[in-house]
């Protein structure tokens, strides 16, 4: 996400504005690219080039969230493809005063739920969280950590992946949106089309289960050692 950083604090407001440095996220639009609202308008009119720009702008978020909910790369790729197809199909219904990414998250949650249901019909497992078997699961972008740290992070990621696999879809989506994506409880409630009370209850339940799973896992490993 973007953050603001002051390099200097001059006395006047004008100097303050000149000294302001805004650090943009990786996928942020530069000054040369048209704003998102204009891209959405053109894509809704049928401009596929504009829609491709929208995909480039949001593909990392969509892929990351799909991966966190579904737990493996293959399902996350299928989900991302279906998400963007639905976005294109329903772009005409999107109102400019809406939050685009909240709308995108809602589509993501729905698609991930449909894929998880389809998977459940073919398998008895709640979710095939194979983060530990993912070939690139342990590649962290721009990481300069030591081998021990990398191993520790790998084990932690695997632990959380297993804990998430025990959660039902709604609790998993709620905790990912709240804790990982950093959205407020009210925003999560809007995306999930639930009340804030229900979302808090789901988040609370999800956190308890994750904590309990981690405790048991660590106790079991401590006994083994």
């Amino acid at each position, binding site marked *: 996400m973007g953050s603001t950083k002051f390099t200097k604090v001059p006395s006047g407001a004008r100097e303050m504005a000149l000294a302001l440095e805004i650090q943009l996220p990786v996928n942020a639009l530069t000054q040369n690219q048209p704003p998102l609202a204009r891209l959405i308008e053109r894509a809704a009119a*049928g401009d*596929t080039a504009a*829609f*491709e720009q929208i*995909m*480039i702008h949001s*593909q*990392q978020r969509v*892929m*990351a969230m799909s*991966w*966190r909910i579904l737990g493996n*790369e293959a399902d*996350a*790729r299928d989900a*991302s*493809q279906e998400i*963007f*197809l639905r976005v*294109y199909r329903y772009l005409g219904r999107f109102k400019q005063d809406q939050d685009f990414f909240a709308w995108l998250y809602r589509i993501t949650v729905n698609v991930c739920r449909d894929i998880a249901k389809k998977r459940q019909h073919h398998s008895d497992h709640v979710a095939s969280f194979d*983060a530990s078997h*993912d070939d*690139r*699961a*342990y*590649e*962290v*972008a721009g990481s300069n950590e030591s081998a021990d740290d990398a191993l520790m*992070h790998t084990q*932690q*990621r695997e*632990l*959380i*992946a297993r804990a*998430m696999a025990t959660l039902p879809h709604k609790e998993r989506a709620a*905790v990912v949106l*709240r*804790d*990982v994506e950093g959205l407020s*409880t009210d925003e999560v409630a809007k995306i999930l089309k639930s009340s804030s009370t229900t979302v*808090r209850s789901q*988040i*609370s*339940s999800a*956190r*308890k289960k*994750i*904590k309990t799973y*981690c*405790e048991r896992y660590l106790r079991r490993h401590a006994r083994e050692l």
Partner: protein
Amino acid sequence: MNCNYVKDLLPLYVGRDLDEERATAIATHIQTCERCAGSAEEYGEARNLLLQYAPPAFSEGVYSGIRQRVLREIEEKQAATMLSPFLAVLFRPRIKWAVATTLLLAVSISIFYFVANRTDDRQQVADGRATADRTAESTEPIERPESDEPKTNPPKASTEDPISRIKSIRPRPRIKATALATSVAAKTVGPRSTAADVSTNANDPVDPESVAARVPAPQEKILRVEMQTKDPNIRIIWFSTQRSKRDAPNKSSKRNLEVRSNA
């Protein structure tokens, strides 16, 4: 605030999802309760792990593959829509029902028309047969010609319109069919006609078609028969009036026989 109540609120406390009043109360409690403090710490560690739960670094190839598949599917759907806009319009719900109803009506009318025509045709054929039967029943049996030809059933005949007979005469290929001429001529001429009367010479070829064309209409009183012999200049015209069955056919036929020659 007791430990059971705090234990239920700790998951929301660590995520800062509680209102300020309850958050302050819990913070105060865990400062004095080691057990609740330990639970809060465990919740904090689990949440930190969750915050670090990051996906792997997907390559640009993965993202571009997703984009290409999406764009390809969009293009295919757009092409399908452009190729059949008319069909797409036809298959809208209301128009679909209207088209289906129209087709059903057209098929029903066609079937009704076809069946009705076939019924009329059959009726006409049946009427024609009945008329022929009635005509045959109303005529007298005809005498056999003086020849060695085998006797056949006496043919039936009735009167006919003389004018239509003349008009129906057409030049036809001449064939020797004296027996045929006997039966066919008997159909077209009156009750006293014979093959000898019809032809000056039984061996002369007579056009059976010209004779057959002259089917006498029912309820005619004057019968006229015209026959073209082999010689184009000689034509035989025979007149007959309708008489009772008791009269001998030979006497009247000889009186009304006329032979015309263009020589």
